[in-house]
């Protein structure tokens, strides 16, 4: 027996039960520890007004927005008066008053189910405790959240919930971030009385992303409501009644939504957890880094959870303007691509075609020598899908100093008009799409190109029954839409008013036109944009109070590249190049590069272009550097380094800066601050981080409407949702997804 045990024996009265005054307590298994909870009585109707209440802060920054001041009502939460708009529920009123009500089924972005009963509160003059999430607040209501009735009710509900919940917290992946765990500590009893056999439920196979342990499910139905309301797939549902109730897919099938990973976050218990993350780490071991996502042009706000040098998982961050609190599966699960196929050493290709690792000094010297040996107009620089603004401005300055202006961003075709910012960003803003009542999608499939924008459109369609017209090849939509046609002819018909949809646009209050980023690679993009602008003019899409003319870009780097003017000057420059500098550009047509050209690939993954490269310079991925990205709506955001760089790799702009010095055309910036100062002279909006800079209203500078349109139908910009860039193509999970979910 250790000293600690001895001491505690000496300190403690032998047993509280044996010493108690009432010996009949001895065999009573009480569940309630406080005597006042034994006989809960509704608190007295007339209560003396509490002397002075401490000022309370609303829960989680809950804010009240009064659309109409007359609609404000006053309720009392624990005697504390609070003004809320009409239509708020009791739970929302409590949140505004700074009282956090425990809940499982209630989620502010989903419909109200009211089936977990955890949010019971006492309301004066109500005979029973009421479920606060489903009860509308009425004027003068006296809500009591801290009374014995409310506490007893919560304790009872918690005991029932824990009745059939397995005791496997030590091996559960939700352990440490589990609502049930937390709330049973805060509101539950200290023991349960259930001694019968617990029920068990067969696990469901929801695909390669979501792991299910259905025995842990408490039937809050958040996942069912999320799937049908936000994700727009009717895959999940509830079967059976009472203790036979189960969440499932009715017939055995996988969950085929691009937002399916979000059910992991909304599940309050460990029933739905991340399959790739299963048993990998505990959440308290992880370091969270608040950064942004670069796998599409939305720029979803994410938190990268890392342990040591490894990215363990990616979670969404709340941003009402961009991704609300959801992220797409590609964003969430691409992280294992960051650990595979990484370039970690500068490499030079030998004459026999093999790569040999060399030092930075040697690699830069070779590149600089070759760059000086070619004519200036044979030098080409291309930035990739994942490049940050710093590396793009450095690339542009470097290539310009070498005497060439052939520098552009991937996915930007020749003659793209980058002069008018309103011509390539989402002018309505992502959150602004919710006000729209008619959508015209031109050559864009938002579901695969930008899943979060698609979720916003679906939200709008669900809320206001907005009409959606779509021009393009057959595509998947998870909301009602009208397929108007496949090619530019339909666009012309609408522009000339020959199509019934043009009347719909002109009748609409807030019409929205979304043009796909794939149009930038068409040769007739000017004509198509002219047609779109004609439609906009006729339908009054662009007004002083509403700008509904949008472009949905495809890559994280595209908006910043256009801001910085990385636009190809002529179509033929790549075919005549002798020196090609690729900064992470993997999706260019490698066959266009002449065989005798010297190709430098600077990037973080051995993807496609490295096989054509003569010199490889390893760079940092988005999780390892501080980089500025602009999303499709023109909001500038920054990534932050979550993990160290791999091997001998360096930041993109620093490599170009070092190379410029070796090449004798030294760039005039040494620090990030100086790079930002340089960016500010070109595109000031790129230094205003976390701000969306709206574009000024366009005056008609475009060539007027011509019929000079190529009649070929619009193409599909994103063939495979799960594999769009170097990181996602290196990811095993994404490969699994595209194999099982897309059957590719």
């Amino acid at each position: 027996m250790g000293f600690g045990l001895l001491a505690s024996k000496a300190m403690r009265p032998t047993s509280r039960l044996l010493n108690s005054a009432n010996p009949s307590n001895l065999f009573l298994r009480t569940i309630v520890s406080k005597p006042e909870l034994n006989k809960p009585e509704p608190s007295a109707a007339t209560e003396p007004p509490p002397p002075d209440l401490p000022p309370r802060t609303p829960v989680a920054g809950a804010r009240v927005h009064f659309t109409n001041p007359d609609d404000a009502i006053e309720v009392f939460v624990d005697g504390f008066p609070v003004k809320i708009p009409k239509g708020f529920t009791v739970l929302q009123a409590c949140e505004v008053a700074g009282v956090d009500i425990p809940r499982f089924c209630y989620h502010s972005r989903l419909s109200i189910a009211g089936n977990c009963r955890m949010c019971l509160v006492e309301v004066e003059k109500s005979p029973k405790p009421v479920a606060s999430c489903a009860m509308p607040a009425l004027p003068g209501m006296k809500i009591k959240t801290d009374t014995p009735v409310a506490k007893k009710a919560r304790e009872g509900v918690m005991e029932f919930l824990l009745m059939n919940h397995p005791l496997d917290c030590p091996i559960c992946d939700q352990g440490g971030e589990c609502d049930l765990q937390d709330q049973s500590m805060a509101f539950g009893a200290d023991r349960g009385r259930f001694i019968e056999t617990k029920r068990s439920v067969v696990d469901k196979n929801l695909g390669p992303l979501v792991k299910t342990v259905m025995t842990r499910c408490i039937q809050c139905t958040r996942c069912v409501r999320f799937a049908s309301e936000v994700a727009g797939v009717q895959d999940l549902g509830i079967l059976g009644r009472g203790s036979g109730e189960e969440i499932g897919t009715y017939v055995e099938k996988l969950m085929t939504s691009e937002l399916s990973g979000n059910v992991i976050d909304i599940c309050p218990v460990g029933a739905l957890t991340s399959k790739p993350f299963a048993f990998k780490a505990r959440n308290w071991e992880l370091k969270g880094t608040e950064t942004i996502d670069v796998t599409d042009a939305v720029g979803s706000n994410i938190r990268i959870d890392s342990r040591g040098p490894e990215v363990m998982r990616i979670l969404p961050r709340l941003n009402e303007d961009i991704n609300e609190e959801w992220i797409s599966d590609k964003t969430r699960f691409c992280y294992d691509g960051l650990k595979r196929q990484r370039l970690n050493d500068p490499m030079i290709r030998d004459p026999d075609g093999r790569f040999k690792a060399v030092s930075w000094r040697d690699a830069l010297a070779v590149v600089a020598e070759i760059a000086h040996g070619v004519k200036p107009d044979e030098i080409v620089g291309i930035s990739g899908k994942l490049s940050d603004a710093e590396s793009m401005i450095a690339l542009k300055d470097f290539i310009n100093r070498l005497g060439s202006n052939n520098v552009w961003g991937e996915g930007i075709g020749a003659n793209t008009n980058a002069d008018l910012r309103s011509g390539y960003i989402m002018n309505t803003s992502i959150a602004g799409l919710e006000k729209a009542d008619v959508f015209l999608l031109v050559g864009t499939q938002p579901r695969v190109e930008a899943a979060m924008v698609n979720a916003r459109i679906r939200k709008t369609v669900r809320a206001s029954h907005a009409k959606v017209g779509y021009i393009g090849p057959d595509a998947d939509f998870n909301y009602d839409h009208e397929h108007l046609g496949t090619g530019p002819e339909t666009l012309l018909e609408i522009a000339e008013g020959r199509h019934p949809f043009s009347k719909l646009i002109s009748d609409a209050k807030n019409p929205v036109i979304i043009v796909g980023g794939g149009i930038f690679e068409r040769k007739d993009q000017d004509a198509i944009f002219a047609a779109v602008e004609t439609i906009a003019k006729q339908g009054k899409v662009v007004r002083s109070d509403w700008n509904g003319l949008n472009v949905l870009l495809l890559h994280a780097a595209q908006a910043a590249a256009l801001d910085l003017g990385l636009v190809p000057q002529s179509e033929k420059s790549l075919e005549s190049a002798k020196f090609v500098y690729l900064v992470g550009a993997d999706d260019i047509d490698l066959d266009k590069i002449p065989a005798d050209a010297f190709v430098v690939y600077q990037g973080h993954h051995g993807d496609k272009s490295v096989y054509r490269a003569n010199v490889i310079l390893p760079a940092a991925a988005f999780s390892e550097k501080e980089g500025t990205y602009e999303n499709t709506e023109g909001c500038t955001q920054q990534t932050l380094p979550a993990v160290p760089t791999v091997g001998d790799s360096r930041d993109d702009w620093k490599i170009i800066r070092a190379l410029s010095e070796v090449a004798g055309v030294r760039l005039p910036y040494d620090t990030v601050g100086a790079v930002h100062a340089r960016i500010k002279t070109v595109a000031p909006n790129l230094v205003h981080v976390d701000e969306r800079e709206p574009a000024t209203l366009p005056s008609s500078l475009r060539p007027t409407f011509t019929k000079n349109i190529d009649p070929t139908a619009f193409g599909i910009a994103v063939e495979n949702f799960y594999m769009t860039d170097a990181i996602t193509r290196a990811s095993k999970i994404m490969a699994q997804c595209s194999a099982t979910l897309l059957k590719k």
Partner: protein
Amino acid sequence: MTTVVKSIVSSIKEKGFGGFFRYLKDEGYLFVVEMHYKAVIYSSTVYWQTKIHNIGARLVGVDKFGNKYYEKLENIQHGRHRWVEYAEKSRYNASQVPAEWHGWLHHITDHTGDELLLLKPKRYGAEHKENLSGEGDQYIYHSKGHALNPGQRNWTRYQPWESKAEP
């Protein structure tokens, strides 16, 4: 000393010369004589002392390494009535006594090692290992990340791109 001579004579009588010689060889006397001439004086002297001590003692048991455990209760100084004769003749040390015999040898228990062996858990009872400190670098424990650990764990958490000749 008379007892020693007496017991030698009696065992020669019992076994004959050939038998006695074989007995000596099996028991390791000849080895020790040899070692004696090779001037490993200390250990062999202790060995001879043990052998002499053994005379008239009861062999209580032999463990799986071949160590022999003796006990003699009469005509002996108190506290010296249990002892071990190591199977290892030259490089022996106390850590060669397995756990089950340790208690008997040190008068912690009167149960012999053979009895205690029956209580050894089958599933997780580990094999006894002698302490090899000072026996060479290969026996030194290095943690899994230690540079001297031949099986040092690879802490690289990414998989580098390997250049193939052609895609």
